[in-house]
């Protein structure tokens, strides 16, 4: 399974086990910036750790501090290996843009239809520098 995704924010090509979220998430209050653990007890993937995973986001709930949480995850070495978003979230992705400005190595963020997310569930996923999102079978 492979699809060519639009690159939203360039960064380091990534690979990791897919973590496909089944509900939108608020990074602020929803993800622990020190560990990358999903801390929102109401979220279906509560307790999962996003660090090192290829994170598929069906949507985000826009706290204006989401960017600070994502940048803090990058700084703490707990960022996802790559982010796959259904639609661009400017506030969240600002965290990657600013981390790049800081000279830190950041994961790529790409855009893919959320309908395609299920194809990657449970797979080891690679996001290549050209935006190709591939699942190892």
């Amino acid at each position: 399974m492979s699809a060519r995704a639009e690159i939203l924010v360039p960064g380091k090509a990534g690979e990791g086990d897919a973590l496909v979220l089944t509900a939108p998430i608020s990074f602020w209050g929803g993800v622990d910036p020190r560990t990358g653990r999903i801390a929102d007890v109401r979220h279906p993937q509560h307790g999962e750790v996003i660090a090192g995973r290829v994170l598929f986001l069906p949507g985000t709930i826009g706290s204006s501090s989401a960017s600070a949480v994502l940048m803090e995850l990058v700084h703490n070495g707990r960022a996802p290996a790559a982010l796959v978003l259904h639609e661009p979230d400017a506030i969240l992705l600002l965290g990657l843009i600013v981390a790049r400005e800081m000279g830190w190595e950041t994961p790529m963020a790409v855009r893919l239809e959320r309908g395609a997310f299920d194809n990657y569930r449970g797979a080891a996923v690679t996001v290549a520098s050209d935006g190709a999102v591939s699942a190892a079978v």
Partner: protein
Amino acid sequence: MSLVLSPEERAIAAGRDGAGMAMRIVAESARLLGAPRLIPIASTHIDGALYHGDSGTLFAEKLVEGGAKVAVRSTLNVGALDLMGCSHIRLEEPQRGMARRMMEAYRKLGCEQSWTCAPYQAGHRPALGSDVAWGESNAVVFCNSVLGARTNRYGDFLDIACAITARAPDYGLHRTENRRARLIFDVSRLSPSFLASEIAWPVLGSLYGREVGNAIAVVTGVTDHPGEDALKAFGAAAASSGAVGLFHIAGVTPEAPDVEAILAGPEPEAVIRVTPAMVATARAGLSTAAATKTIDAVAIGSPHLSHAEFDNLERLIAGRWLAVPIYACTGRHALALLEQDGQRKRLEASGVVIVADTCVVVTPIMPDLAGGVLMTNSGKFAHYAPGNTGYAVLYASLADCVESAVLGKPVFTDIAA
């Protein structure tokens, strides 16, 4: 429609200094938002100086090292420390030191040391129709709705980048066509005595946020101007329960001289007719504590108290000693007035803990207390206190908060909607 930068903007963005970094951040955000261009702005209010982790401090210090300075008037929202020394903040090292470095970096960038979430009551009032870039949800909604200046919600990093570049992405509430109301929120069925009460506005704000969300409505059925502190409370509560950036009140707020003038079309898409039962449910929803015989503290001042609100507080306390503390959060602008005539000393002698530059839900001030109960008259504190402080919340009017603090147990006066 893709983003086009002016030659001057492109030249700045190519720089290796702090201004270049700021311009690239604004331009990249504009690209992700789908804005066709950047527009000049008249001022900013910066929410980014509240410590969430070391990376934010390092970012601000990198801008300072790169020689960046704000190019427009920029006030600061609350920080994590009370630099005025009114209250004791329990933030430990090394976070405390990093929070202090962060506040210092924003000062060096040229921001005003306002440290308040009510900058609009500290002399920062942009003109009707002007474009600005403000952060902090209550300040954004007040700026848009009550002042009629134009801003989106600018969060961490983008706020200071806009301040340095004096630019913002052209989208959202900067555009006239996006500021018109599609819904009507009609409160005409509520009693005049309820609408004149202090609790009306935080409770209605909480209901408005939940019903309207990020859409824009015009409130109808308000016959008398409720006063600026009431509008402040309404907006803060609305922006806590929903993603509200702008509201209108027919005959009260500047872009809505009447309903017809502000509706997007000849007819609203929906009319929300507020009933006393809806108000009762919204009011009950602001409290999370079960029936309780005692309270542990009262917190007021979200948004930060104005001097007029301190006058009310002092009148209600009437020199009595409080059995549990009232944490009264405010900014330096009000603190200076409190100190002029000995009001601060009188309030503190009664047991009021004045908190300046910050507030009790963004940094640890109140004691860690398993099963603690906090009473508040703020819809915003009611929303955030359980998650951020661990205290359960009881919502009440300021008068009931004061009586409860004097007695150490909850007192409620019935105010029927």
